[in-house]
Structure formats: structure tokens, C-alpha cells
């Protein structure tokens, strides 16, 4: 096999190469020092560019942007304009938008019908012997089966005394070209975050106790939001990361460039490969 050109190597790195070509390139790479060198160089360039770009990013306020969008859309008259026919109309997007008089009337009718059903149910429950109650009951609840017994809810597991002992929800991301970025959003004040270096190429995030965090990921980055109420988090950062950042509520708390680590965040404790932070009150 001849030397692989840059384009093929880049496509290989970006997972844009068909499987058959990948295997053949991989066998070539095991034997060809020049191509391996070129591949590593492209990997290095990719990691540098990614780290540079990540460094200029700022926090994104999606919820407020959505609110703004709704207001803007309402100000523009609400309803979407007619399709221009340029793109085929399959599974087209719709957004209900703010209430219009017609939509309001439809919603009111639905609400009135629901209310009537609820009242009927209540009357049936309150006066089961009455003919009206019986009719409503037969109509709404045709089965004569006895009501099922209430579901037995098991007692909640006791909360661990120290949150470190019970890191529950775990999510993670692999490094991409030696770079990894972790963003934690909506962390409450006084939340502790412990970041530690670990072996392997997997960055992991654990929250103590149950939480309903939202997670978004991309190549080499992960964003966990909706962290209100979590009081302790652990972040495992690959020791091998060439570039890594941990960003909390839009601020960089820890940055790793090669072996060098800087911690602009609110550090409360350092212990070997571990650093603990506490979000401001």
C-alpha cells in the first residue's frame, strides 16, 4: 500500500472512513512509520485546535434563550408562515406557540369536558346509589372489578451519612484526541466538587444521591446541567489528558495542559491527585 494522504488520515481520525478502508489503513499504519507519524501529527493539531476553541467558549443560557424565542415569536404574530415548498414536507416541524383565540377556545372546551368528567366521577363516588351516579359510574367505569389495592411503596433507602460513600448516578465521556472538557451547570451554592486524576481515557462524573441532571455530550465534552440540590460531586479526569478543563457554572475551575494543572476555582482542599472545591454562597 502506498503512503496514506492527509485527507484519508484525517477521515480515519474523524470516523468518516468505511470499515473496509479502515482495516486496510490500520494494517498499513502498523508497518509504516511515516504514516503513523503523520497520523499522530494530525491528532496533535486536532487536540490543539480543540483546546484553543474550548478556551474561548462561554456559558450558554438555553432556558432563557428559549423564553426569549417564545416572546420574539409571539411578537411576530405567532403562527408559522406558509411553507415555501423548497424542501419536501415530510415530518415537518411544528411549535404550538403562544395561545391564539382559536387555540384558547379549543383548550377551554377540552378543559370543560375534563371538568365534567371529573365532576361525574366525584358524584359517582359520593352518591354511589343514585341513578345519575350509577349511570355516570357505569359510563365512566364500566368494569365491576373491585378497585385494586393501593400500591405499596417500599421505604426509601436511607441517605448515606457522608455523600462520598454513596456516589450514585455516574456519567462519563472518553477523551477525544487527548482533550476532554467537563461542564457542570446550575450547581447550587456550597456544593462540593472533588476532582481527581485517574488512569485510562474515561472522564466520569458522579453525583451523591439521586439527581435529575440533564446530560449533553459531544466528541470529548460532556455537560451536566440541572444540578440544583446536589451537594457533592466527584469528577474523574484522565491523567493522560493533554488538555482538560472542568467548568462550573460558566467558570473554569480546573485546567490541565499536559502535566500542568491550574485551579482557578474556589479550592478548599488538596490531597495528592485530588482537589476539592466548594461553590460560592
Amino acid at each position: 500500500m502506498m503512503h496514506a494522504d492527509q485527507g484519508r488520515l484525517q477521515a480515519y481520525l474523524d470516523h468518516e472512513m468505511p470499515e473496509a478502508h479502515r482495516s486496510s489503513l490500520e494494517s498499513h499504519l502498523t508497518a509504516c512509520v511515516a504514516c503513523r507519524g503523520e497520523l499522530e501529527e494530525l491528532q496533535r493539531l486536532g487536540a490543539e485546535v480543540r483546546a484553543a476553541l474550548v478556551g474561548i467558549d462561554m456559558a450558554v443560557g438555553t432556558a432563557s434563550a428559549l423564553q426569549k424565542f417564545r416572546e420574539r415569536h409571539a411578537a411576530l404574530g405567532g403562527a408559522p408562515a406558509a411553507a415555501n415548498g423548497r424542501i419536501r414536507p415530510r415530518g415537518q416541524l411544528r411549535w404550538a406557540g403562544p395561545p391564539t383565540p382559536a387555540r384558547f377556545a379549543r383548550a377551554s372546551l377540552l378543559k370543560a369536558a375534563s371538568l365534567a368528567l371529573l365532576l361525574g366521577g366525584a358524584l359517582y363516588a359520593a352518591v354511589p346509589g343514585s341513578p345519575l351516579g350509577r349511570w355516570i359510574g357505569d359510563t365512566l367505569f364500566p368494569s365491576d372489578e373491585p378497585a385494586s389495592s393501593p400500591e405499596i411503596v417500599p421505604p426509601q433507602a436511607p441517605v448515606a451519612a457522608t455523600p462520598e460513600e454513596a456516589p450514585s448516578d455516574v456519567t462519563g465521556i472518553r477523551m477525544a484526541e487527548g482533550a476532554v472538557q467537563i461542564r457542570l451547570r446550575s450547581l447550587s451554592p456550597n456544593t462540593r466538587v472533588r476532582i481527581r486524576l485517574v488512569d485510562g481515557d474515561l472522564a466520569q462524573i458522579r453525583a451523591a444521591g439521586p439527581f435529575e441532571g440533564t446530560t449533553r455530550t459531544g466528541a470529548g465534552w460532556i455537560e451536566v446541567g440541572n444540578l440544583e440540590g446536589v451537594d457533592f460531586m466527584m469528577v474523574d479526569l484522565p491523567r493522560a489528558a493533554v488538555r482538560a478543563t472542568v467548568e462550573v457554572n460558566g467558570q473554569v475551575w480546573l485546567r490541565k495542559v499536559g502535566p500542568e494543572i491550574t485551579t482557578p476555582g474556589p479550592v478548599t482542599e488538596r490531597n495528592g491527585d485530588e482537589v476539592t472545591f466548594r461553590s460560592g454562597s
Partner: protein
Amino acid sequence: VDFDGLFQRLYPSLFRYLHRLTGDADMAEDVAQESFVRLLRQPLTEEEVRPWLFTVAMNLVRDGARKTERRHRLLATAPALVTQGRLPDEDVERSERIEAVRQVLDRLPERDRQLLLMREEGFKYEEIAAVVGVAPASVGTLIARALRRFVDLYDTREIR
């Protein structure tokens, strides 16, 4: 299709792309918002939405850039008012780094910028090719060259 869900899924990526592209958070937000408003008029399938949004956003940025250029020409004679407070070292270092990256992005040809930024947002080569207007088979080579140009410009600037 749940438009709110779609907005929540695509807005962060579009905003990040636009902010990286323009260096202007307000403009990034305005353009992203306008792109979503225009999206409502389009009967697109879900898989068509993302490339469409980014293409429209890019066109809006180009239009905005033309208007800004005209405005800058008009303002060129007005003296600039600069106030600068003292920043902590960490912030100074960060703003210098941001400025360096911004300058590199500004000096790159538009096509290189688009290629690198779209790649970072996880677009497929085929989608990048459609937006940038090149053959899909050439995207790998163009990205490799753009990466090299970016790093060369960045390194040169840092040494100076």
C-alpha cells in the same frame, strides 16, 4: 416534532458555533434566535434541520458582517473611548488567550473557519461539504490543511 426539545438540543451547539465564529455573544444570540424563527417557516425533516440552521445562521452572519463593515467605515473618524480597569492575572491571561484565538480565527480564510468549527460541532463530512460548498471527498484534506494553518498562526502569534 417537539420544537422546544429541538430548540434545547440544537441551540447550545448553534450558539457556540456562532460565538466562536464571530466572537460576539450578542450577535451569536441574535443570529441563533433569528435562525430558529426562520426554521418555523420550513417544512423540514428532523435530519435536515441542523445543516439548514447552520447554513442560514452563516448567511445571517455574512449579511451582518457587511452591515457592520459599513458602520465601521462611518465610525472610523470618531475617537475610540477606552476604559480599562485592572484585571486579576488569571483574567488577564485568559483574555490574552481568547484574543489570540480570536485573531487566529479572524485571519483564517472563511472556508477554513467553517470547516474547523463545523467539525467541532460533530457534523458529518457530507453535511460540512454541503454547507461549505466543496466535494465530500475533499473535506478530510481541507480539514487537515485548516488545522495546520490554525496551529501555525497560533504558534507564530504566541512567539511574537
